[in-house]
């Protein structure tokens, strides 16, 4: 209970700050926050499925479906309905593809989700080249929408964090952890593994769809290539793994850290930023895997290692003197 109260004390000012931000900051800062909350929404929802040990590289699929829906419908139906519709379509397609997808495990699952993105993209491409008369790109022209997109994105991001926390606490979260430890054992204990995996998969697809619809307004130029960018999947996985998949907090910090690093590189090295980002990832992954998940471990390790370190130093110093 005390933990909860402290959490509220931290969260409320942050939320208040976020709510008033459009009055304080400029468009640039607002766009930056939108991208942070995009990553938060994607990563938090992706990690729900990842708790079960199923690493999906298919975030782009549902993100793209959402974005494509917005691109097709933005001037046809009320704007507020489209993210909901985009989420619903993503959910529906997730339900259809879950049938082959959830039958496989391990690397096969990862590969298949990756292939799914390209399958849907190529289906849309074939369909468009066959039935569309002119150019296939849709340009979204809505005037100044940044404020509204910002509020919507913040709402989606915050709700994703809450849902993630609720999932961890619930029976679903326990079941997903059990699946990660040993799927067959979990099944033999009477856990309906398929059902829980399906719920997790649908939840993450829904969020990716809604996020995609909202981000389409920012992307503004929607064709099958801009809607389905595999890099979105990869960024989500990178952030998720950096965050350590131990719960919403680590993922939240990782999302913010990633966006800040990306933004700094983007502004200071416009031509080399992706190259530098890759190098940074390479160093981080090769030399300190699970950056943020190890923060909690660090205090434990410190206690255990300090005596060893001390004796190591002592022996080195003594050895140095002996060498004289």
């Amino acid at each position, binding site marked *: 209970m005390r933990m909860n109260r402290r959490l509220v004390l931290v969260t409320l000012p942050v939320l208040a700050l976020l709510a008033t931000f459009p009055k304080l900051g400029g468009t640039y800062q607002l766009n930056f926050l939108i991208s942070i909350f995009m990553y938060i929404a994607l990563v938090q929802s992706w990690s729900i499925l990842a708790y079960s*040990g199923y*690493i999906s*590289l298919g975030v782009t699929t549902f993100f793209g479906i959402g974005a494509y829906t917005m691109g097709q419908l933005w001037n046809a139906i009320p704007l507020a309905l489209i993210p909901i519709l985009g989420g619903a379509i993503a959910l529906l397609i997730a339900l259809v593809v879950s*049938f*082959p997808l959830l*039958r*496989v495990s*391990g*690397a*096969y699952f*990862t*590969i*298949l989700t*990756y*292939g*799914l993105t*390209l*399958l849907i993209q*190529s*289906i849309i*491409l*074939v369909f468009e*080249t066959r039935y569309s008369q002119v150019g296939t790109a849709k340009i979204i022209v809505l005037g100044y929408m940044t404020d509204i997109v910002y509020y919507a994105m913040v709402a989606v991001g915050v709700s994703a964090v809450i849902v993630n926390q609720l999932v961890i606490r619930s029976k679903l979260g326990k079941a997903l952890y059990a699946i990660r430890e040993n799927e067959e054992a979990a099944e033999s204990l009477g856990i309906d593994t398929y059902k829980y995996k399906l719920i997790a998969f649908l939840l993450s697809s829904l969020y990716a769809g809604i996020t995609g619809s909202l981000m389409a307004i920012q992307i503004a130029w929607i064709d099958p290539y801009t809607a389905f960018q*595999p890099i979105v999947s*990869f960024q989500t*996985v*990178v952030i998720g*793994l950096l965050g350590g998949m131990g719960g919403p907090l680590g993922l939240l910090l990782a999302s913010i850290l990633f966006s800040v690093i990306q933004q700094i590189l983007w502004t200071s090295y416009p*031509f*080399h930023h*992706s*190259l530098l*980002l*890759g*190098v940074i*990832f*390479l160093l981080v*992954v*090769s*030399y300190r*895997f699970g950056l943020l998940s190890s923060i909690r471990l660090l205090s434990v390790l410190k206690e255990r290692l300090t005596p060893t370190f001390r004796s190591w130093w002592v022996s080195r110093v003594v050895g140095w003197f002996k060498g004289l």
Partner: protein
Amino acid sequence: MVSEAFVTLTIQTLVAGTLFSLVGVSLNLLYSVTRLLNIATGEFVMIGAYTTYWLFTEFSISPLLSHVLVLVLFSIAGAVSYILAFRRLTEQGVSEKTEVASLLIFFSIILVAQNFIILRFTSTYQGYAFMMQSVNIFGVNIAANKLVLIAFGLLALLAIHLLLSTKNLGLAMKATIQNRTAAQLVGIDVRLIDLITVSLSLGLAAFAGSLLSMTFNFEPFIGLYYTISALIVMVIGGVGNISGTLIGGMALGLVNAAGSYYFSPGVAVAISYGIFFAILLVRPRGLFRGIL
């Protein structure tokens, strides 16, 4: 008399099939031995293509020589990258964690490779003319470089097959694929096998790129297509099954050639993904079981 469609289809199948088999073997060998899931396979293909292009346009080194050069060069690069980065991942035995960490490493490699090539060569299509004269086969004109591609590719695949089925090294690799711990127990130096596998795998991927640069135009983003093809081939052939991978590569090549010939390249890609899904639906562990 052999019909024109048959000859064209056979050549196209062999061209695509050789390339797919090469990248498939590259991916499958690496994954089954070390559990490193190389989603940057296509990027090594792309860099291989650019290397040969660069050697040809800047130093006028014949692509025929570059193919071998690229194979050797990237094998060495693979060995170095194993020592620098991958050894840390595979040292404590391989597990799911290796897989996940390798995804991140290879994603970083994708970013670095694509952007490096864009900065050096810009992101437009590149290509060069080499052995463009046509050879008449049963009344159909085929560019000579396609035949060279097929010959070089099949030779490399044959070499791999012989290596794995007759040599002690191949046996040791298969043993490591089957059971890493047991392989260690019977005295196989698993770290050496890892080193050789990484080096061979990266060398093969770049070699495939070097070959395709003779025939096709390329840009910094072709990697994704070859990566996904390699994944499909691996799924068709089965993880750890190298002979199955060769069959899978040719099968995918056939689908691609027929789809492009009768419909359009876009439809061919859609069909390959569809088949990929269908196979996994029926046989979630791949078409061919076991290790050959």
